[in-house]
């Protein structure tokens, strides 16, 4: 784990900066993302005397309102909640940790009976979660776990990255004989991004050590993905792989490759991302060199958002949920169609 | 005899190759008033600004109270004892008199402003300048003359030993000017060295102990005042010995000349501008008729409604009744563009706020409304623009005649020529020209040129000119006929031989009565 994942071509200065970054990532990952599904933290909740509360309201606090997943998640969760006769409240945090804290505090003050929150900064949310529990509310942590919580909904962001990194490494070994050039589009601004980045880079460099890492550039949106990939391609026109921390960024890389004259079905090129975003899924389905996406099924998440608080309210023993992440590639047509159908 | 309080030696300053000051010497002993005269652009403003620390001089020394400096920052200048009262006052309208006087040097007690101590001190200072306002009055509510006294009191509070007054009477009424002159005499006896910048030779004669005339950045004339005629000073300012073709506003002979030419021109001609029953907020109803080629003055004190009448005619303000005709056509001007379309143009009094585009070039300033009419199929006619500008700059005597120089770099008189040029260039058809204080802040030489331009516009192109002024000299010099404005009404008319400074002054005194001389507000 602590081995530097970067190839020997990286300069000493960069190495220092990057390994410092990697150390930070490791520390944060350890702090913020405990082993999933152990259920220890929910034991107290399960042991509470009030074991059969009926929930009428669930508050879903998903801060990244600019992401397409937000709209999908709200839609699917609302539908899932309606089936269980629960109404769903949502926040509009606009990716601002301060706004998120304000909105959550409002909910706690107003005693929204169950809160499902994806904390932008886990450490900063601990106090609010404690106040929610003290007020007798249900607190479900989304995307990680807190000390004070009723239950959590876990994803392994690290695993999503790992799945993509392994698949790309396998492809590189088979199609390129273990040689070639790879560029990573990374994110080091939020915890989720750092975990995904780490999983992706560690897995790839472990399984395909012969492939040169020529770039690691911050990019989470298609615009930035495009312009960064273009710059990398100007220096390395023979680039083989672009792996993205998001599908959106990878899609920008996909377009950059095409614009430098690469055929959409080029056999020596691999682009992969994470999220299961619609444009990327379509590109995979069409058999292009966009070959893989580590995808979460929005319906699975939506179900967990409703079922986990209900399970806590009903006093179930292990209310927490682990949402599966799978890698979608060429040939997974049925799965792609299923995912696309959820994105409505 | 003590050392002179202010001694400037060999001061030089250039702006991008233009020599604004070229080795100027100026010595003002304590207890003297030294008048500083000169054409606009002669270097007076630059000299004052070097003294106040706004620009560093290129060469020379400034000696105040025995200490010599090669350059001053504004703070050092104040510390050295120099106080400059600019034309545009630097008082803060929203603060009280006392707060203004102690702005930046507040008296504090327990880390808060010691208001009472400040007000007591302010009262003393106000008494010294014989101001009638209270330390607690808001400066924004005071008449202009009182604001100026507040600024002088502020200078005294900083124990200034050198006081520079930059055209102090430009915005004052006659009575206020007289009051100010008395203050200046008081301050002289209190031992201040006073530099008095002015265009008015009458003020020089009344107040000055010595006079320096600047021309083209050099000292063109220096003397004790006694024994010198106006003519000598005027020649020093203008720099040409030959008699001027048109009367000077200051000269006694000028009045006769103008009166003669006015009566010669007073052949009845078709009315160009007819204003009937014209009313608006603060004035009216008024009746005005200006014939083709006639120059009519609106004379009155600040606040009498002169400016409002002109601005309403131009559509800057809304009229509440009456009719306006240009020739035979009835005109309703809801906005300036309507007035312009009907052939009415206005040169506003507040050049800085309403007239000039300081960042833009001289040519842009002079031709702005003309660019579109000159353009062909929406594309600017660059050659035609340059030709029109060149003709115009020759006609008005623009100095320097550089089309690309930004307007901010010109002197006040030349800026006024640019604003005026906007309406009188050959490519522009203006039937009625309205001028509000056409030579405010303009020196004697440029003033004369502006009068000549306006006169020839009227005589050669038949433009009807209606101008407002609070300066009787100006009215006599420029107008064929003059309407007396008081409290929003026209109370009298003078023309021909009746039109003299004395007649104007007595007319306005009658109209106002002596007690109301101070009552005035912003125009």
């Amino acid at each position: 784990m602590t081995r530097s994942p970067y190839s020997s071509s990286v300069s000493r200065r960069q190495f220092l900066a990057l390994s410092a970054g990697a150390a930070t990532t490791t520390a944060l990952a350890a702090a913020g993302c405990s082993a999933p599904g152990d259920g220890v933290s929910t034991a107290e909740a399960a042991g509470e005397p009030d074991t059969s509360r009926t929930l009428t309201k669930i508050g879903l606090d998903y801060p990244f309102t600019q992401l397409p997943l937000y709209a999908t998640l709200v839609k699917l969760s609302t539908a899932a909640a309606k089936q269980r006769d629960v109404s769903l409240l949502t926040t509009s945090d606009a990716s601002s940790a301060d706004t998120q804290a304000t909105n959550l505090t409002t909910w706690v003050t107003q005693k929204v009976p169950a809160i499902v929150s994806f904390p932008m900064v886990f450490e900063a949310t601990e106090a609010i979660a404690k106040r929610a529990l003290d007020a007798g509310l249900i607190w479900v942590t989304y995307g990680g776990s807190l000390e004070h919580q009723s239950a959590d909904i876990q994803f392994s962001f690290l695993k999503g990255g790992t799945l993509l990194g392994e698949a790309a490494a396998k492809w590189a070994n088979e199609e390129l004989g273990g040689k070639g050039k790879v560029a990573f589009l990374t994110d080091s601004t939020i915890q989720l991004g750092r975990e995904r980045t780490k999983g992706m880079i560690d897995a790839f460099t472990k399984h395909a050590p012969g492939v040169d890492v020529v770039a690691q550039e911050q990019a989470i949106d298609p615009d930035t993905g495009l312009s960064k990939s273009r710059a990398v391609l100007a220096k390395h026109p023979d680039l083989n792989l672009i792996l993205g921390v998001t599908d959106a960024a990878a899609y920008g890389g996909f377009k950059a490759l095409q614009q430098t004259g690469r055929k959409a079905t080029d056999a020596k090129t691999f682009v992969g991302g994470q999220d299961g975003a619609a444009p990327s899924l379509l590109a995979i389905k069409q058999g292009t060199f966009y070959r893989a996406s580590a995808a979460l099924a929005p319906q699975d998440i939506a179900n967990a958002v409703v079922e986990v608080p209900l399970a806590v309210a009903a006093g179930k023993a292990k209310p927490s949920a682990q949402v599966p992440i799978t890698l979608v590639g060429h040939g997974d047509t049925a799965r792609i169609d299923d995912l696309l159908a959820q994105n409505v | 005899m003590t050392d002179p309080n202010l001694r400037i030696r060999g001061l030089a300053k250039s702006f991008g190759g233009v020599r604004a000051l070229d080795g100027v010497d100026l010595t003002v002993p304590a207890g003297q008033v030294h008048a500083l005269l000169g054409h606009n652009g002669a270097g007076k403003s630059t000299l004052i600004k070097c003294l106040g620390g706004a620009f560093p001089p290129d060469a020379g020394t400034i000696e105040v109270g025995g200490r010599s400096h090669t350059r001053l920052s504004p703070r050092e200048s104040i510390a050295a004892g120099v106080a400059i009262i600019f034309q545009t006052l630097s008082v803060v309208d929203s603060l009280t008199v006392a707060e203004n006087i102690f702005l930046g040097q507040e008296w504090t007690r327990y880390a808060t402003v010691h208001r009472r101590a400040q007000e007591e001190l302010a009262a003393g200072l106000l008494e010294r300048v014989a101001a009638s306002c209270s330390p607690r009055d808001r400066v924004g509510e005071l008449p202009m003359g009182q604001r100026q006294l507040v600024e002088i009191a502020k200078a005294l509070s900083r124990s200034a030993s050198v006081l520079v007054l930059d055209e102090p009477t430009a915005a004052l009424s006659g009575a206020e000017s007289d009051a100010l002159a008395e203050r200046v005499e008081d301050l002289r006896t209190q031992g201040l060295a006073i530099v008095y910048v002015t265009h008015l030779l009458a003020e020089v004669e009344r107040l000055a102990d010595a006079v320096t005339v600047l021309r083209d950045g050099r000292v063109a004339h220096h003397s004790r005042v006694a024994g010198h005629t106006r003519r000598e000073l005027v020649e020093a300012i203008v720099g040409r010995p030959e008699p001027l073709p048109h009367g000077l506003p200051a000269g006694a002979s000028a009045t006769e000349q103008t009166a003669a030419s006015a009566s010669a021109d007073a052949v009845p001609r078709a009315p160009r501008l007819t204003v009937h029953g014209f009313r608006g907020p603060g004035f009216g109803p008024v009746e005005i008729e200006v014939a083709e080629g006639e120059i009519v003055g609106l004379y009155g004190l600040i606040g009498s409604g002169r400016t409002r009448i002109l601005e309403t005619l131009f559509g800057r303000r809304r009229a509440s009744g009456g009719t306006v005709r240009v020739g035979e056509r009835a005109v309703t001007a809801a906005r300036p563009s309507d007035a312009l379309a009907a052939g009415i143009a206005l040169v506003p009094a507040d050049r800085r706020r309403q007239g000039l585009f300081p960042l833009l070039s001289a040519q842009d300033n002079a031709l702005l409304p003309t660019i579109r009419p000159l353009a062909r199929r929406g594309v600017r006619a660059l050659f035609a623009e340059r030709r029109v500008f060149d003709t115009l700059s020759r006609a008005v005597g623009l100095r320097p005649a550089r089309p690309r120089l930004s307007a901010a770099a010109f002197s006040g008189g030349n800026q006024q020529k640019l604003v005026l040029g906007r309406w009188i260039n050959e490519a522009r058809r203006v039937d009625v020209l309205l001028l509000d204080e056409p030579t405010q802040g303009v020196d004697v030489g440029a003033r004369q040129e502006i009068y000549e331009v306006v006169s020839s516009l009227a005589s050669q192109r038949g433009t009807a000119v209606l101008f407002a002024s609070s300066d009787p000299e100006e009215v006599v010099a420029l107008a064929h006929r003059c309407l007396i404005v008081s409290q929003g009404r026209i109370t009298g008319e003078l023309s021909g031989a009746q039109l003299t400074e004395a007649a104007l002054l007595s007319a306005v005194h009658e109209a106002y009565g002596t007690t109301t001389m101070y009552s005035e507000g912003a125009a």
Partner: protein
Amino acid sequence: MTTATTAPARRPTPSPRALARGGLSTLRRHPLFVVLALMVLVFQLATGSFLDPGNLRGIATDAATLAIVAVPLALLVISGYLDLSVGSTLALGGLVAGWLAGQQHQSPAVAVLGALAVGATVGAVNGILCCYLGLSAFIVTLGMLTAVRGVAQQLFPLPLSSFGSGFAWLGGSRIAGIDAPVVIAALVLVAGALFLALTPSGRHVFAIGVNREAAYLSGIHIRRTPFALFVVTGVAAALAGAIKASVLDSVVAGTSGAGFELTVLTAVLLGGVALTGGSGSILGVLLGVLFLGCLQNGLTLLSVPTFWQQMAQGTALVAGAALAYFGPRLTR
């Protein structure tokens, strides 16, 4: 303050020396040119591939959308106004174009015109509120930035993609070997420069920015001209959005053009346009746009780690602004 005319006025015909001095004065007015040249030199020496045609093409294409919006925005700033809503207008324009081309199967021309119409509408709302009702442009367009983003996300919550090969023409085709967005940007730049230099309204833009009251009293349309500029800015933002949508063959309502408004404003101000209105030039804007484009690209080429890139970008911006400010004084 005025270095505009260094050649003596009495010289009747421009001699070679006067022309050389004219060139020098252009340099003095645009010291960013020197900064840019230095930066290009450093990047070329450090990477060896900065000046490769492929890389330059990439920079040009990236800078193109920036330039398309920067030109009308610069005119707006010169006239004393401001538009901060362009980032969201860009997103909405891209979404509408993509939706028309992809889901409605309209021709590329219809798709682009649809986007432009939406941009014009946003611009008109800005213009009416700022020019005719006299509200603060800063507040109004900041509000519109959020509101238009909301409209975009409400109408198109999901990412759009696969707009068809016809629409790809806008961002992908080459005219005489130059990418279409670059050609469009060049046209916009030339049009902007000609507008300022050769049309009466171009002069009026400056006059309104310098002294609105004096412009009004000179009979200039002090509302109509800035209003038109707001509309043109909206149209340009939507056009840029359509181009980006075409290049990426996808648009995401939430992230498209996020932060774009500040990037454009940075380019405009860096190019010497004063936020107080009344001064600026299209050449300056071009330099500002290229400066940002080269900086971003060069730092990526050097593989500078993310946070170091942010530091370097911030520092370079301040340094660029400082040189642009102090440069002319030092060379005097």
